[in-house]
């Protein structure tokens, strides 16, 4: 069964979230959205329903964050909580319903980017981890990794330096280049730590778009095939959580993957609970 990183939000039934949650992470300008634009039609050609979503796109808080950022006056805790509001709104109103309907949810960043940014701004890592402990554990996190020297030309020749992406609130200077360099270096350092902690699947983002796409496609195909995998996450489960009885195994109806497969449950799960199927397709529509 699907899990969260700690608390479960009121009214959220984890048992019926049969879709797949796939996260594409990476810093600003690394090419996440380009890849998602390629991945979506590729998945749809295989008959998979796809929801793509990303930061600041919530109906509730997306606009408010945008407006507040224009004033450049948000404090780091305020900014973190505003993003958490946006995330919670999308989780409850987009991601969870889509997972319940058996969709593949492709998310352009997840809580990790938000945590990395907050920590780079001096927020207590334990505090931000608690805030996001209601997040669902994804089926996979693909981290598009790039060094700051490779990143800079991409940003300069596409969108240019942005105030927040350059961490101008952190390193105010006349020179946005210097600021960008310092901030992104700090951010990439945080990403590397998170990559270890949450077992990201790291993809080198320096080659051309098609090569990165090929790597991502292989990784995602593997996740969707439902073959048994090593557990992705080693974060301990909170002790208080009651064990739920495993439901009857659902049958995958996609011809390509007709055999039942195991869930990505944690290694320490009791033996009695081993084979809970996470099925795609029309299971709960």
């Amino acid at each position, binding site marked *: 069964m699907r899990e969260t990183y*700690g*608390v479960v*939000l*009121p*009214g959220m039934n984890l048992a019926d979230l049969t879709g797949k949650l796939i996260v594409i992470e990476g810093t600003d300008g690394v090419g996440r959205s380009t890849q998602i634009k390629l991945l979506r039609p590729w998945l749809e050609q295989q008959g998979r329903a796809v929801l793509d979503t990303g930061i600041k796109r919530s*109906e*509730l*808080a997306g*606009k*408010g964050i945008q*407006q*507040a950022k224009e*004033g450049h*006056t*948000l*404090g*780091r*805790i*305020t900014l*973190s*909580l*505003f993003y*958490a*509001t946006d995330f*919670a*709104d999308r989780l*409850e109103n987009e991601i969870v319903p889509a997972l319940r309907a058996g969709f593949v949810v492709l998310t352009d960043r997840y809580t990790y980017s938000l945590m990395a940014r907050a920590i780079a701004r*001096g*927020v*207590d890592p334990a*505090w931000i981890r*608690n*805030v996001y*402990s*209601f997040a669902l554990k994804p089926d996979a996190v693909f981290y598009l990794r790039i060094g700051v020297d490779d990143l800079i030309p991409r940003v300069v020749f596409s969108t240019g330096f942005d105030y927040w992406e350059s961490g101008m609130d952190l390193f105010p200077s006349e020179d946005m280049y210097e600021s960008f360099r310092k901030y992104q270096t700090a951010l990439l350092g945080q990403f590397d730590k998170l990559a270890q902690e949450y077992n990201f699947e790291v993809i080198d983002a320096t080659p051309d778009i098609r090569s990165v796409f090929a790597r991502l496609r292989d990784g995602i195909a593997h996740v969707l095939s439902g073959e048994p995998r090593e557990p992705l996450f080693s974060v301990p489960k909170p002790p208080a959580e009651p064990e739920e009885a495993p439901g009857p195994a659902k049958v995958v109806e996609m011809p390509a993957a007709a055999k039942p497969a195991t869930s990505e449950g944690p290694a320490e799960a009791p033996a009695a609970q081993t084979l809970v199927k996470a099925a795609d397709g029309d299971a709960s529509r």
Partner: protein
Amino acid sequence: MKRYGEHRFPGKLFIVEGIDGSGKSTQLMLLHQWLQAEGYGTVFSEWNSSPLVKETTRRGKKKQMLTPATFSLIHATDFADRMEHNIIPLLKAGAVVLCDRYIYTAFGRDVVRGMDPKWVREMYSFAAKPTGAFYFRVPLDVAMNRILNGRAAIKFYEGGMDLGLAEDAEESFKIFQGRILEEYEKMVPEFDLTVIDATLPIEEQQTQMRQIVKARLAQAKRLRVAP
């Protein structure tokens, strides 16, 4: 990042808590008058008033888009903005800051809405600990009688209508406030809240409050901005 605890700023922070109809806002207003007359630089900060976040909260409430999680998070965002841009700088500057409702309001409401008590407390751990926190204890029916007479219609979230407690707004409001009352009682020992009997005459409550505030301002004479 500072964690919830005694702040070391020269200013002082006094806050009032209690259910709707407990009379806390009246008491805080009277305290404010007195402190100003005594010559303290006094600033009042209201719950749910950050200009940056207000528009989002207003929209969420109006369209009834808020779930327990987003209700909790948007209020925490609002509070964080006030803490970072208003309360902390004022405390640093040596002001006496008065807050009508504080983090305990969020603890009560959010937990009644089903949020995890530890999660909510940890989220608000950036808040400065008040110099004095007054809880106005009042029986539910007394509070209800005070506010339900001649009051405008109860708002959706104010009455806990999102929880589906009752069809009728007034009934839902009573159940919701009753549950919040239970949460407040748990918080009295947990956060060492100073309990004021809110059924006493107004002047008597104010006398008690002023005594306590006075004692805690004893070493703060330099906070006076006027003779």
